């Protein structure tokens, strides 16, 4: 089942790329949406409960290295998988527009599918293969379909940063593989080098300050679906990697304090950076760094609450940032730029529904209780408060304090953005146009998801309650 769920988007994505001349953009997008929906449904159906590995596939692959084709869905990966497939569907739906290039749909499918592969892998080498697989397609998405100057440069920066990180992860995987094998459910290592390398590697991907400088450029130049995939899915590869690897490494404890502090410094740093942004997409990109900071803080506690926080935070961030980027994309489609100064004030009056969606997304992103963004942040604060088993009290509580400052800053910069764009005396522009049906469907779906998860966090939190859940990964 998992294999089918992975193969369908992969194959269809490749076919779309090969046969890009034979289909029109909207048709390709529709096909893509159908493929991702199939994947989504399969992943939803494969679930057998949190105490077992669902839909496990385990066959031999590279015997001499101990690598196996080991796929399965666990309580930790399931939310990621569903979120990714969901975002994939929405990206395809978003592309149901006249000017879509079929190749872009194909790339989106391949990227989504390989991300799904990452989340489904229970073998470290397989994990890594999927991890790398999506990068070059993403390069194309940014460089070819991006807008603005320097798309190539941004794409290459993105790729090189990520690969530098993942190369370190590869070395880390080697260390782990030598110590305990490559199977996630069996291996454990006592090596400090592994912990440092893996954390550093995923820190680039997540990204954690100061390894984040690739992110704003990549996000701001990428096309809308590219930004969405980058933020909603790609950053999760980093956090998921940390979640997956943290329990495998005994010496994670030595790295965790640095991780935690870097994470919260990132929250504050990105908060200030956002406060000074004019470009909406850059702003959202920086805000992602902040949100990832919360997730990293949660992971670095290596506690059960932290795990729940990290999973919830990642998923919620995926949805909310997806929403934000889709909104920013809508604006960019209209005005040709995401610069707040160029978009002008008073969107409340000019394009009310778009403005309302933006405000809702912003409010969700700043972690208002009752919306999805809140629970992840809350739980990581709680995880920090409870300290967990690897941090010390001074570190954890310093992190907590900084994170709180970050929350305040997040509010500040989103309020500023709302003030600059949504409010104010409206100056009509020719491009003012409220949501069309396609946009309404995509944004609506995300709004609903954000509201549902915000008001009913149980579907995800129940996976981690009570904390005895092991389900293959979380220990």
């Amino acid at each position, binding site marked *: 089942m998992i294999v089918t769920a992975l193969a369908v988007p992969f194959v269809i994505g490749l076919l779309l790329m090969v046969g890009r001349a034979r289909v029109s953009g909207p048709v390709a997008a529709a096909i893509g949406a159908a493929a991702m929906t199939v994947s989504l449904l399969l992943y939803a159906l494969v679930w057998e409960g949190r105490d077992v590995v669902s839909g496990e596939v385990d066959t031999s692959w590279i015997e001499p290295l101990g690598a196996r084709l080991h796929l399965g869905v666990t309580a930790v990966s399931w939310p990621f998988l569903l979120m990714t497939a969901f975002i994939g569907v929405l990206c395809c739906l978003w592309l149901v527009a006249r000017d879509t290039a079929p190749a872009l749909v194909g790339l989106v499918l391949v990227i989504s599918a390989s991300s799904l592969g990452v989340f489904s892998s229970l073998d470290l080498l397989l994990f890594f293969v999927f991890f790398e697989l999506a990068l070059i397609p993403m390069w194309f998405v940014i460089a070819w379909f991006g807008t603005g100057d320097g798309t190539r440069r941004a794409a290459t*920066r993105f790729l090189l*940063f990520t690969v530098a990180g993942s190369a370190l992860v590869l070395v880390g995987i080697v260390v782990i593989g030598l110590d305990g094998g490559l199977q996630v459910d069996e291996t454990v290592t006592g090596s400090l080098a592994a912990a440092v390398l893996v954390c550093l590697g995923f820190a680039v991907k997540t990204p954690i*300050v*100061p390894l*984040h*400088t*690739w992110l*704003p450029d990549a996000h701001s130049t990428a096309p809308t679906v590219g930004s969405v995939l980058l933020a909603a899915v790609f950053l999760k590869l980093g956090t998921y990697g940390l979640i997956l690897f943290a329990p495998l490494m005994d010496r994670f404890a030595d790295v965790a304090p640095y991780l935690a502090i870097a994470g919260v410094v990132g929250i504050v*740093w990105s908060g*200030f*950076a*956002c*406060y*000074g*942004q004019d470009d909406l997409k850059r702003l959202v990109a920086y805000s992602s760094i902040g949100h990832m900071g919360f997730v990293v803080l949660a992971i670095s506690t290596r506690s059960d*609450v932290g795990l*729940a926080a990290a999973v919830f935070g990642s998923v919620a961030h995926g949805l909310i940032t997806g929403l934000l980027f889709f909104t920013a994309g809508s604006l960019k489609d209209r005005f040709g730029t995401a610069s707040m100064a160029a978009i002008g004030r*008073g969107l*409340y*009056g000019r394009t009310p529904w778009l403005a309302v969606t933006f405000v809702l997304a912003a*409010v969700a992103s*700043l972690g*208002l*209780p*009752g919306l999805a963004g809140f*629970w992840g942040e*809350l*739980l990581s*604060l*709680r995880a920090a*408060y*409870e300290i967990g088993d690897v941090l010390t009290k001074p570190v954890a509580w310093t992190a907590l304090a900084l994170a*709180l400052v970050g*929350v*305040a*800053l997040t*509010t*500040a910069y989103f*309020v*500023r953005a709302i*003030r600059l764009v*949504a*409010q*104010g*005396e*409206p100056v009509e522009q020719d491009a003012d146009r409220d949501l069309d049906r396609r946009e309404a469907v995509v944004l609506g779906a995300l709004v609903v998801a954000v509201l549902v998860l915000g*008001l*009913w*966090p*149980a579907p995800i*939190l129940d996976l*981690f*309650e*009570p904390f005895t859940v092991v389900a293959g990964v979380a220990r």
Partner: protein
Amino acid sequence: MSRRWIYVALTAALATAASIWAVPRLDEPGWFAYVGQGGAGDGPPLPSLSPDLFLYPVSAQVVLLAVGVGLLVQIYSTAYLGHHPRYRSYALIIILFLVGMIAVVGTTNLWVLLVGWEVMGLCSYLLIGHEWQTAEARAGAAKAFLVTRVADLGLLLAILVIGETYGTYDIVGAQIASSQDGVASSTAIGLLVLVAVVGKSAQFPLQTWLPDAMPGPTPITALIHAATMVAAGVYLAARLFPFYADSTVVLTAMAVVAGITMLMGALFALVQTDLKRALAWSTVSQLAFMFAAIAAGDPEAGTDHLISHGVFKALLFLGCGCLMHAVGSSALAAMGGLRRSMPATFWTMSIGFAALAGVIPTVGFFTKDSVLHAIEQSAGEDGGLATGTTYVLLGVALVTSFVTAAYATRLWLRAFFGPVPDGRQEHHGHEAPRAMIGPLVVLAVATFALSIGQPFHLGIGVVGTVIAAGGIAVVVWSWRGGSTLEWTTRPLTAELGLDRPFTSWAPAFARGVSRTVVDLDRDGVDVYPRAGAGVAGLTSRALELVQTRNVQRYATVIAVGVLVLVVAAVIWT
């Protein structure tokens, strides 16, 4: 027109439902403290949002106050704001606000409470910014949201601490646990709660957002920034009182905050030239009164004053709305002499001012009396505040009563009596439509009706009445003496510059730091990849320099390489 009534009907339905739920519980005995059996779990569970509705009599009162005022405001708004192009969102947000308020008051699940709490904050933000074309509204909204949200982090942490301490996020459950295992972490919880309520209820030092929220539509001010949301801070402090009741530190801190705020708010209200702003400061001051009661160990007195204040302050604000409707401004200078042209407003607002000043037999008198009594009583009791603190607090409260009576009188006189300002024609002031007067009347009636059954404490009551009378008398005497009552005492009119940290320092700091961060992010943090790329590029160029096709140079490179390797090998073996 009829479309507007849909929202009123919706509000009414909500109000009815809430009433059906709340009214039966008004008479049940019991205060927030819960004594019962049952055990708590091992650790706090992950948060959930099960509603866990549960009403005590006090919370039932607050619910009724909220929905009542909400309904009245909704009705009032049909006339006041009915022609506004964005009436729909306005009305809907009010309903959302009421839901949030009911959630805060009606649940025992701390997370639901927090959600409601924040939803209220959001609605407040959106409604203050309703007139988002104007710069003041935008600024006020942003400030209100930011200040309250920062303070709300205190509540968030408080909830976490409660959960950790008692193993549950249910207030009742936590109370059970505390009654069984004893109270713990009370100082931490109390201080965090204090932070939250100081923000939400605009207490010192976070008081400035409330006056700045006045660009919001006046009905909203009446509902949110007078009767319900800001009072929710008091409600919360009272609700969670059992968890920190034994911490002198917390109570003292609260007393200090309350003392400073009440006097400061009253003094500021005394010198305002804008009626609405004056009322806002008055609200700040009155909220501090309630906190004083809680600090004195009698949260019940605080919540009683909450209810009464909610009623008469809503009345005052709605009346203020009528005046603004009439003269098109909330400046006192634009008013004056409206007594004749707007009799209904005049009479109802007079009742409101009387209640504010604490004149018998308005409900304001009785509940203020209770508060003063509570403070007086707490002196000398074991636990709680030190006796000295109590007496200082009592003194401040009495002074504040005096000032309160004074400014209430001043506002009343200036709005309704003084000379008609030059620019305005006499006939220009006209009575408000019925949909606006109706709610005023209802509230005025309630101002008296709620007095029924209120306790009266003879000693302090007499003292309070005398002081209030003194305040009124001084102002009236001054008015009679020909004063225009335009008191412009510089430090007070500038509100002591307490606003400056929020309006200039913090934004300037944030802007400065953010500019630095943005620059650093571009040029500083990015140095290592850029330097790396630069080094790689230079090395690459250098390598090209070696590749000259001159074989002799190649041989030299090889020879040097061998030499280096040999030397290195000899050294390390």
